[in-house]
């Protein structure tokens, strides 16, 4: 197995709701990402996926826990100390139109970044041309304003911008969910392509299981701020262990009508993450919930089989 490149240990992020109650956005999450893999995080809205992505890049301050990049602790670094790691870690956001300054030409957004990191003009031109070739866009997009380009073009440009500094690691925060399906496929292929060509490691945040199944090597399923199941993609989809993951896969649309069958759909909505008590967070919606166990004792995330982690008292 290749080496660990990113290590997240006991990450906690609480947002104060009032003086005494807190919203547990991310509650004691630990995972590692290995070099060259695409690690997926799936979950409903509000499960804390994006918070994890932003914490890793130090865009929000975390409350507890440690984040290690290649052995160096980065969560406590200030802006100056972080600068060195910014080159290695980049982020791609969900809304491609919003992630470009609306008053800036695309070209100037690229050159600004190069100037900031003191890349020479010559090298910059070469890099930009190469990247445009890679994302398959003509050079004249550089003379456009963001509002003049389509979502797919902008998302490719936003990926290209994040690659400009030749990072090792990219956090892709729902990079395709704002795009339509045909464009989604283009972007996903581009991401896979980049991983193969540039040896990138990618943290892929998504709520779409199909996308995750298509692109990721390992997947973590999040529910209400905790990881409930984490496994290799094949393990996760063929041997689902956590009832929540099971439910997620169940509700995933099936393309062919004759393959459709009756499916169990979990009742209710994701509950509030404010002041979550002891017990399994999924207990309230889980049909396998054991009274006296699941709603009292918080299940630990344990390795049930090689590489397959589950936080459940009664896994399948």
């Amino acid at each position: 197995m290749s080496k660990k490149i990113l290590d997240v240990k006991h990450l906690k992020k609480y947002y104060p709701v009032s003086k005494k109650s807190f919203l547990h956005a991310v509650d004691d999450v630990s995972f590692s990402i290995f070099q060259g893999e695409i690690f997926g995080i799936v979950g409903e809205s509000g499960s804390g996926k994006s918070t994890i992505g932003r914490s890793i890049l130090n865009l929000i301050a975390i409350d507890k826990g440690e984040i290690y990049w290649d052995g160096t602790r980065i969560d406590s670094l200030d802006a100056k100390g972080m600068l060195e790691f910014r080159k290695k870690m980049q982020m791609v956001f969900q809304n491609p139109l919003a992630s470009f300054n609306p008053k800036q030409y695309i070209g100037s957004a690229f050159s600004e970044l190069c100037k900031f990191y003191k890349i020479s003009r010559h090298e910059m031109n070469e890099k930009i041309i190469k990247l445009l070739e890679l994302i398959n866009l003509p050079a004249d997009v550089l003379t456009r304003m963001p509002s003049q380009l389509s979502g797919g073009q902008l998302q490719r440009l936003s990926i290209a911008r994040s690659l400009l500094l030749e990072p090792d690691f990219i956090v892709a925060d729902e990079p395709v969910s704002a795009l339509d399906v045909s464009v989604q496929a283009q972007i996903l292929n581009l991401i896979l392509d980049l991983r193969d060509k540039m040896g990138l490691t990618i943290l892929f945040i998504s709520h779409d299981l199909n996308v995750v199944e298509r692109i990721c090597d390992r997947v973590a399923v999040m529910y209400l701020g905790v990881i409930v199941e984490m496994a290799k993609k094949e393990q996760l989809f063929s041997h689902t262990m956590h009832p929540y993951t099971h439910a997620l896969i169940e509700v995933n649309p099936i393309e062919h009508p004759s393959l459709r069958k009756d499916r169990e759909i979990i009742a209710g909505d994701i509950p509030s993450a404010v002041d979550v008590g002891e017990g399994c967070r999924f207990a309230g919606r889980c049909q396998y919930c054991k009274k006296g166990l699941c709603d009292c004792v918080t299940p630990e995330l344990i390795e049930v089989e090689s590489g397959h982690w589950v936080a459940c008292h009664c896994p399948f």
Partner: protein
Amino acid sequence: MKKKKMGTLFTPPMMISAIILAVILLISIFGTLLAPYDPEAIDLANTYKKFSPDHWFGTDAMGRDMFSRMLCGAHTTILNAVLVVLFADFIGVPLGLMCGYKEGLLDKIVMRIWDILAAFPPLILAMVFVAIFGKGELNAVLATGIVFIPMISRLTRSSVLSEKTKTYVETAKSLGYTERKIIFRHIFPNVVPTLMAEFTLDIGYAIISLASLSYMGLGVQSPKSDWGSILQSGMALLFKSPTVALIPGIAIVITVVALNLLTDSIQMYLDPVQRRLPHIMKYKKREAKHNEKYA
């Protein structure tokens, strides 16, 4: 080709207001040279004259030629109003940017001070500052400018607050840009349209504020006069010779309306979404240049 260019910045309202403002600006610069009479020459034989070829705008209570007085007054009025707003923007905008972006102790302190200042009517406040600095033209400008600072920095701050939640600011942070760069290179250009609107609007307010101070004898000192002091001197003669008050009033209205029209056009132009097919030619040129370079 030319028609397409007309559609971008040079819309009809923009053209009209720009021409009016250009004329007013020229008058305010060269007015003193164009005046047919000495604006301060008292001619008691010719008081309250109506419009005539000799006196285009008539004469006032002391027989002074209104046309000459308006021309010379334009200089003082426009220059002082622009100075007021420039001064207020120079201090208010950076302050608003910092407060809006950092939102810390500085923000709290500054905003509370502005709250206190806002409790007083602006004119009273300006009078207080004039009382502190002493009366006179420059002090009136300074006092009005100070009164305008809270308004401008508040507006800047609130625009920054809404801008900084947008993803492009987060992107800039994730790229490692410094705070100063994010504030001035990324957020500032996006609040400029709002500030432009405020700038031209404020010039109108400044004209009125300065006029009020002049009326009370705290601003422009006699015999020098601006549109405001002429207007106020006409108030007493409203029934005897309404033109003395009407002419500067109309001049102020035309100036302010033209400023507002211009603001609207500029704002529309600066907003790339509202802009009608911008700079097709410019892109074509850039594209050609680019192709040349990398051919």
